[in-house]
C-alpha cells in the first residue's frame, strides 16, 4: 500500500506540488493524468526520493509503514529497484548501449540480492521471457541497438520488475512508441499487474490510454490533484471543469468545411527513394534500402490529405522528397505542373508555393534570431525583401493569434504552443498553396493541440490552403482531413475518403492500426454533454 499524504514540493522557491494526496492500491492500476508541467513526473520522482537539487518536500509518502521522504539516501538506494521500480518514456536512452540486455537485467538482481552471476542471469532469462523476449529468439547477449523501440521498452520493464517490486511507476511508457507497439506494451503491463499483484502508477497525458488501463484515476493540474476516483465514475461524472476541458480537447473536432477543388496541386508519380546502408565489412559494398517504393498520389487544391503510418514506414523520407530536400531515384513529383528536383537550386517560384511546419516546436527556430527575422526568413524566396516586410510579418503573426509586438522578442520567451503558431506564421508568409504539416501537433498538450487544429482549419478556409497532414496519431488525422493514405514499408497500402477508411478499413494493416488506437468507451461520455 502506497499513500501520498499532503505532499508538497518546492524547487528553488517555486511551488511545484501542493498538498497532493493519493492512494495507490495493491494489485491495481492507478492513472495519473495531466498536461506537461502539471507535476506528474515530480510526483513520481518524489516517491523514489529522486527529487532534483534545490527542492524541498513536505508531507508524507508512505510505503507500507515507512515514510519515503524521511529515509536517508542509503536506505532509499536499497528501496529503489527493490520495492519500487520505474520505467521511463524514452527506451532509446534508458538502456546502456555498451551492456547486453541480460547483464542489464541481472545487474539489478546482483545489487539488491546476494545472488551469483549465474543465478542472476537465470532470473534475467525468465524475466525477459515473461516480458515477451524469450531467450531462443532474443539471446541474453543481445545489445540494445539490435532491438526495436518496443523491444527495448520490454527490456526496461524486465529490469523494473526483476525483483518483484510492490510498486511499478511507468512515466509515459508508450508515448514514444507506435500505436500497435503501444497496445502490446500496455497489454504486457496489465498482465504483470494481474499476475504479480503489484501496483502500477501509470503517468500519461493520454485520457484514452488511462480509460482502458486504470482502475483509479487522478487528474492533475498545476501541481494539484483536482479530481480523483474510480475510472468509470470519473469519466461519467467529470465533476471538475478542468477534467471536462481535457476531455473535450482530446476528442476535439475542429469545425471545417471540405473545400477541395478538382484541380490537382501536388502529383507524386511512382516516387522511389533509396538510401545507402552501412558497408558490411571493410571492403563490402554498401547495401541499398528502399524507403519509398513507387508511391503515387494526387493532392488537390484546398484539400486536406492525411498520411498515416508507423515510424520507419517512409513518411518522413517522402516528405523530404516533396519539399525538394532529397533527390528521388525514380518517378517524379510535380507541384502545379512544375517538377520538383532536389538541390540547392530548386526554382524559388516552386519553393514559394509550399512551406512546412515541423514537429518539434523547440528545434524549429534559430535561438539567436528575433521573431521578426525568423518569420521573414522565407522572404528569401521573393526577389528582394518587400518594403512592407514588417507589416506583413505583423499580419502573419496576427493571423495565427500572436500579438505583433512579439516581433522583437527571442524564441525562448514563447511556450510550445506559441512557437508552433509562429512556425505556422513563417509558413504562411509567402502565401503558399501547400503546407506540409509533419507531425505538427504531435508534441503539443491536448488543449493546445485543439487550439492549433482550430487555427489550421480557420487558415485553410481563409487562404484556400492545401494541407498534407503527416501523423502517427489516427484520431487527429481523422478529425482534420478529407482524404487519408495509409503507408507501410514504403508503400501506400490504402487510400480513400477519411470517414470511409476509418469506418470500413479494407487493408489488414489499416484494421490493425485502428484496432490498436486506444479509445474512451463511447457510453462513458454520456453525461458529459448533459
Amino acid at each position, binding site marked *: 500500500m502506497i499513500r501520498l499524504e499532503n505532499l508538497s514540493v518546492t524547487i528553488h522557491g517555486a511551488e511545484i506540488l501542493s498538498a497532493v494526496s493519493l492512494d495507490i492500491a495493491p494489485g491495481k492500476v492507478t492513472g495519473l493524468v495531466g498536461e506537461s508541467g502539471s507535476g506528474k513526473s515530480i510526483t513520481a520522482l518524489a516517491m523514489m526520493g529522486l527529487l532534483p537539487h534545490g527542492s524541498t518536500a513536505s508531507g508524507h509518502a508512505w510505503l507500507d509503514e515507512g515514510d519515503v521522504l524521511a529515509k536517508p539516501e542509503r536506505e532509499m538506494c536499497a528501496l529503489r529497484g527493490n520495492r519500487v521500480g520505474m520505467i521511463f518514456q524514452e527506451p532509446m536512452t534508458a538502456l546502456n548501449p555498451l551492456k547486453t540486455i541480460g547483464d542489464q537485467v541481472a545487474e539489478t538482481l546482483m545489487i539488491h540480492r546476494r545472488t551469483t552471476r549465474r543465478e542472476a542471469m537465470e532470473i534475467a532469462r525468465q524475466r525477459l521471457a515473461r516480458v515477451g523476449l524469450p531467450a531462443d529468439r532474443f539471446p541474453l547477449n543481445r545489445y540494445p541497438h539490435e532491438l526495436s523501440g518496443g523491444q527495448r521498452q520490454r527490456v526496461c520493464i524486465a529490469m523494473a520488475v526483476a525483483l518483484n517490486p510492490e510498486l511499478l511507476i511507468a512515466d509515459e511508457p508508450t508515448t514514444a512508441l507506435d500505436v500497435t507497439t503501444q497496445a502490446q506494451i500496455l497489454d504486457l503491463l496489465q498482465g504483470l499487474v494481474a499476475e504479480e499483484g503489484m501496483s502500477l502508477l501509470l503517468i500519461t497525458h493520454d485520457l484514452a490510454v488511462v480509460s482502458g488501463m486504470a482502475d483509479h484515476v487522478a487528474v492533475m493540474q498545476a501541481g494539484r490533484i483536482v479530481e480523483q476516483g474510480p475510472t468509470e465514475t470519473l469519466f461519467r461524472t467529470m465533476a471538475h471543469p478542468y477534467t471536462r476541458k481535457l476531455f473535450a480537447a482530446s476528442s476535439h473536432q475542429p469545425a471545417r468545411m471540405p473545400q477541395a477543388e478538382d484541380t490537382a496541386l501536388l502529383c507524386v508519380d511512382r516516387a522511389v527513394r533509396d538510401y545507402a546502408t552501412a558497408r558490411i565489412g571493410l571492403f563490402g559494398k554498401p547495401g541499398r534500402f528502399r524507403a519509398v517504393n513507387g508511391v503515387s498520389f494526387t493532392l488537390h487544391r484546398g484539400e486536406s490529405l492525411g498520411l498515416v503510418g508507423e515510424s520507419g514506414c517512409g513518411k518522413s523520407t517522402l516528405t523530404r522528397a516533396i519539399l525538394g530536400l532529397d533527390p528521388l531515384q525514380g518517378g517524379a513529383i510535380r507541384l502545379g505542373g512544375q517538377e520538383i528536383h532536389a538541390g*540547392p537550386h530548386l526554382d524559388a517560384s516552386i*519553393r*514559394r508555393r509550399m512551406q*512546412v511546419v515541423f514537429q518539434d516546436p523547440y*528545434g*524549429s527556430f*534559430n535561438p539567436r534570431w528575433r521573431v521578426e527575422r525568423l518569420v521573414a526568413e522565407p522572404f528569401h524566396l521573393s526577389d528582394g525583401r518587400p518594403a512592407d516586410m514588417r507589416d506583413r510579418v505583423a499580419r502573419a503573426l496576427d493571423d495565427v493569434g500572436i500579438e505583433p509586438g512579439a516581433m522583437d522578442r527571442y524564441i525562448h520567451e514563447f511556450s510550445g504552443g506559441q512557437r508552433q503558431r509562429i512556425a505556422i506564421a513563417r509558413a504562411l508568409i509567402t502565401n503558399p498553396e501547400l503546407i506540409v504539416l509533419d507531425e505538427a501537433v504531435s508534441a503539443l498538450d491536448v488543449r493546445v493541440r485543439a487550439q492549433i487544429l482550430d487555427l489550421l482549419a480557420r487558415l485553410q478556409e481563409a487562404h484556400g490552403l492545401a494541407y498534407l497532414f503527416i501523423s502517427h496519431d489516427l484520431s487527429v488525422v481523422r478529425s482534420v482531413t478529407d482524404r487519408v493514405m495509409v503507408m507501410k514499408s514504403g508503400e501506400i497500402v490504402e487510400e480513400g475518403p477519411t470517414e470511409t477508411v476509418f469506418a470500413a478499413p479494407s487493408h489488414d494493416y489499416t484494421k490493425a492500426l485502428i484496432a490498436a488506437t486506444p479509445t474512451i468507451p463511447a457510453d462513458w461520455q454520456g453525461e458529459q454533454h448533459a
Partner: protein
Amino acid sequence: MRPGAQLWIGAGLSAVFLLAALLSFAWTPHDVTALNIADKLKPMSATYPLGTDHFGRDILSMLMVGARTSIAVALVAVGIGVGLGVPLGLLAAANRGSLLDEVVMRGNDLIFAFPSLVIAILITAVFGPSALNAILAIGIFNVPVFARVTRGSALSLWTLDYVLAARVAGKGRLRISVEHILPNITNLLIVQGTIQFSLGILAEAALSYVGLGAQPPTPSWGRMLAEAQTMIYTNPALAILPGLAIVAMVLGLNLMGDGLRDLLDPRVRRARG
C-alpha cells in the same frame, strides 16, 4: 572551485598581462633597449622594482614588453587559425561527404601528422628567425584545430529543424552556414580560441627560448629564460620571473577558457542548476 570564480580569476590574471602589454606601448619604467652595465644584476629596489639583468636592463620593463610580444604572436596565430579553419570547417560540414569535405579533412589529418614544434623550428630555420615567421608557424597548426571543431559542431546543427526550414525557404548552403550555423557555434569557438591562445603563448616562448622567435633587442619571455640559464645559481630571480609570467598567463587563459565553457554551454549550466 566554483565555475564563476574560475572565470573571474582567469579573466583577472589575463587582464593584468593585457593591461601591462598595452601600457608598455606608452610607458615602461625604463628603456628596455638601453644597456647600463653599471647597474647590472641589481636586486629589487625602488628604482628597479624587479631588479636588473646582466646588461642592466630593467626586468619589469622587459616583462611588460615581453607580454606584448607573446600576446601579439598568440593573437595573430589564433587569428590565422580562426580565419582559415572556421570557413574550411563550415564548408566541409555544409558539403558533408563531398570531395571538398574529404580534401579539407584529410588535409587536416596531414597537418596533424607532423609534430608542430619541430615544423615550426624548420620554418624559422629556413626563412630565418623572426617574430613574423614564428607567428606563421604557430598559426598554420591552429588551422586544423579550428576546422575540426567547426565541422564537428556544425554537422550536428545541420540536422536541426530550423536548418531544414531555412532550406525549405530556399537558402543555399553557404548562406545557411553564415546565418544559422556560425552564430550557434560561436560559444565553442570562443572557448577553443582561449585554449589555442594559451598554447600559442607557450609555443612562442618555446621558439624564443631556442632563439627562433622574436630577435634581440625585442624582449621576449622565452629568450629571457634562455639568457638567464647561465646565471641560474647566482641570480635565480632572472629565470624565475619570466617563468612565472608564462605560467600565470597560461593558467589564467586556461581558467578563463574553462569558465567560459561552463558559462556558455547551456547543458553544463542546467546540470549545475
